[in-house]
């Protein structure tokens, strides 16, 4: 059993477990699954700067910060304690395309070192992938009122048409980056 848990989990195990997080949070505390809000709570707690959108009682939402802290711990347990392959077994076509189109050679780890290594902050790649990328995630999720968890999982589970619009927009953005902007950058 432990050997099975230490292998990468297939979608039909992980997906339903992620889905069960939605009723679990509702049942234990009437909370809707959503992670990007945690970024707003941290801003409100640390740098409110008199901004009306950051002036609210973030302490009432502190459960969200505990949940996010747990996700971090879960990342440690899932990766360091429960094992991981050196190289993730992505499809051969993706490897081929990333080599040919982006010049990647190192496919080990969770993120390609050639784009995300901290040393890259001395050139444009680091600033685009680490700084601009992170910024767009933080800006866009709050503007859209949710991320993959709040809109795609939680919102669509609750049959919210607004979330369907949001998820389509997430994909439009992702496809534009992958198919239009990446080829312009590399």
């Amino acid at each position, binding site marked *: 059993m432990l050997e099975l848990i230490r292998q990468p989990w297939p979608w039909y195990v992980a997906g339903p477990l992620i889905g069960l997080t939605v009723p679990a949070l509702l049942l234990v505390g009437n909370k809707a699954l959503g992670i990007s809000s945690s970024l707003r709570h941290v801003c409100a707690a640390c740098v409110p700067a008199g901004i009306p959108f950051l002036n609210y009682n973030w302490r009432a939402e502190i459960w969200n910060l505990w949940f996010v802290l747990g996700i971090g711990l879960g990342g440690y347990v899932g990766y360091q304690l429960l094992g991981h392959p050196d190289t*993730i077994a992505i499809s051969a076509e993706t490897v081929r395309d990333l080599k040919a189109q982006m010049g990647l050679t190192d496919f080990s780890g969770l993120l390609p070192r050639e784009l995300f290594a901290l040393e890259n902050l001395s050139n444009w790649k680091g600033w685009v992938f680490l700084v601009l990328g992170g910024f767009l995630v933080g800006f866009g999720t709050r503007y859209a009122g949710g991320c993959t968890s709040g809109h795609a999982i939680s919102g669509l589970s609750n049959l919210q048409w607004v979330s369907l619009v949001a998820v389509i927009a997430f994909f439009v953005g992702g496809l534009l980056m992958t198919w239009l902007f990446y080829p312009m950058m590399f």
Partner: protein
Amino acid sequence: MKNLKYLVLGVLFGIILTKSEVISWFRIQEMFRFQAFHMYGVIGSAIVVGMLSIQLIKRNHLKSLDGEPIRIADKKFNHGTWIGGTIFGLGWALTGACPGPLFAQLGSGVASAAVLILAALAGTWAYSALRERLPL
């Protein structure tokens, strides 16, 4: 310690995200290039299970642990839904991560995730500051 239950659920959620490799930039690229079913399977089956669970909760009028009737606020539409959604999508394909995976990456030992999280906080802060001047 009423927040302990959220910490525990967070740990489980983080383990699932990590073991299913959805926190990997490579998996997200595979998804946006339509070259594997993995991510679609994870997200799709999560939605189906979430949907069935919410239906069960609603039909049986289930209550939460502290006895309150379960209520889920409706999501409200504004222009941010699609403009912000597209902006997030651009960032999702760049970083290969949405907010949940960023925290799991940091825990797994990826130092760069700290920079990504700081940049995401800066993005959220910038949105908050500019909010009244953006189309809503």
